[in-house]
């Protein structure tokens, strides 16, 4: 029963997100062939090295991202996942290729994106509440409504009552929850997450994955999530883009049709392990 309500709400949110995107379509193209929310074509990245040939981190990444979807970039460490995420965030500019979000070319940081890094990166001198409000201050939108939203977000991730604590008083998992709230405070259109749960222990990690699924129901953000954990990728995603070793290309593009809402039991289902197998094959781990 409860599950059914959740699923309907989720579907409803998805539809809204897709519709709102269709309205935003800047080229005014026919709705029958909408521009995807995110469009990445021939993205290439090489780094100059002194006295050596350039290091090609990303050879070619091409895929489309639907509005409201969660796509995971799954790949071995050093294959260029962080690099790609930073390119999408506008923090570094790609050596080549096209990056379009919402019909705009991304060449510099976009204030309507939210970013969560592997480290929580909280400011030790700010209270938890003020850490969450940091983006609003930078965007000069820090008002009573923002504060209320920060409190709601903190309650949503189970940190009610910690508003006035300092980061040093929180555990790693709690800090990462705060970082998630901070990334969501300005209602970003796109949420970029770079191995956000990588530094957490297994149990906390699974809790955080459920939290992320829960938060997706409540926000309409599109999410790009980076991980090197196969089960994490399959569990949380709509699509898993598997990257090869460096110089990376997309080795497989796996659509995950597991039903929502997802809970831990699903990890033991046949469909789930099949998807894990497929991702493992794409990574060259299983045959």
């Amino acid at each position, binding site marked *: 029963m409860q599950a059914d309500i959740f699923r309907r709400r989720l579907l409803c949110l998805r539809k809204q997100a897709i519709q709102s995107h269709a309205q935003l379509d800047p080229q005014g193209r026919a709705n029958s062939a909408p521009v995807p929310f995110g469009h990445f074509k021939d993205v290439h990245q090489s780094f100059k090295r002194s006295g050596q040939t350039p290091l090609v981190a990303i050879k070619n990444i091409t895929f489309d991202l639907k509005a409201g979807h969660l796509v995971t970039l799954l790949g071995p460490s050093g294959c260029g996942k962080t690099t790609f995420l930073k390119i999408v965030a506008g923090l570094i500019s790609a050596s080549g290729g096209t990056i379009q979000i919402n019909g705009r070319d991304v060449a510099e940081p976009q204030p309507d994106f939210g970013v969560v*890094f592997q480290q929580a990166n909280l400011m030790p001198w700010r209270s938890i509440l003020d850490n969450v409000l940091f983006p609003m201050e930078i965007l000069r939108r820090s008002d009573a409504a923002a504060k209320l939203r920060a409190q709601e977000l903190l309650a949503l991730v189970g940190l009610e009552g910690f508003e006035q604590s300092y980061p040093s008083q929180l555990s790693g998992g709690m800090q990462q929850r705060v970082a998630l709230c901070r990334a969501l405070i300005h209602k970003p259109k796109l949420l970029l997450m770079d191995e956000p749960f990588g530094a957490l222990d297994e149990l906390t990690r699974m809790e955080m994955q459920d939290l992320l699924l829960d938060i997706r129901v409540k926000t309409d953000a599109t999410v790009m999530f980076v991980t090197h954990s196969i089960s994490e990728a399959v569990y949380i995603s709509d699509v898993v883009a598997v990257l090869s070793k460096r110089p990376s290309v997309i080795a497989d593009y796996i659509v995950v049709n597991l039903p929502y809402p997802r809970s831990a039991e699903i990890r033991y289902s046949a469909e789930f392990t099949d998807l894990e197998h497929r991702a493992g094959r794409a990574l060259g781990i299983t045959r």
Partner: protein
Amino acid sequence: MTFRDVRNAIYPLVGISAILLIWQLYTHFLGINRIVLPSPLDILWASISNWDVLLRESWPTFLESVLGFALAVAIGIPFAVCVANSRVLNLTLYPILIATQSIPKVAVAPIILVWFGLGMQSKLVIAFLVAFFPIVVDTAAGMRATPVGLLELARSLRASSLQIFLKVQFPAALPFIFAGAKVAVTLAVIGAVIGEFIGSVGGLGNLLLTANSQLDSPLAWAALIWLSVLGILLFGAVVIAERIVMPWSDVGHH
């Protein structure tokens, strides 16, 4: 005052008491001449009977140190911020700073006395000169040590340079700045005393020299003790300021 403060105060007090006791017994039983080494009780007595002189002479030394230190903070922090954020300024000014720093202040003191006279001004300048360097070096180090993740976060929101400085770099540098300030404030007292030694009409340094030349060792030692108390008080003031400015540094380590 918490239990931790009390506990932290007890250990040094026990240590000092033990030293004083041994010192007292040593001078007493071996009959050491008080000109060579006065006993703690001699010094205490000299402190009490001359308290008015000591208090009067503390005032100029206190002012010289505090004002010199304040000037070093007021000029040193903006200077370090500029040097840390500008490659050109860094390349231009840092070598000069290090070159001037390597000149012993005792050697410069007579020249400064010629320029600024025998009054408080010259001591203030010397105190400033010795306090300046640690403030600049530590502030500049702090400005460069901003965590990359925080800078990326700010950049991802397209924060302005001023926002990045005020909301990220500067608060992140505060622990470094206070580390520099703690060194600087004790050096400022030393600087003031160096100035008073070279030539002055007042201050604890002057009193110490005068007492010494009159072979009044207990008074000279009393002046020395007052000097160190002055240093400790100023250091404590910086620590208290640090706790007020950075309340977060005191939590989460229980």
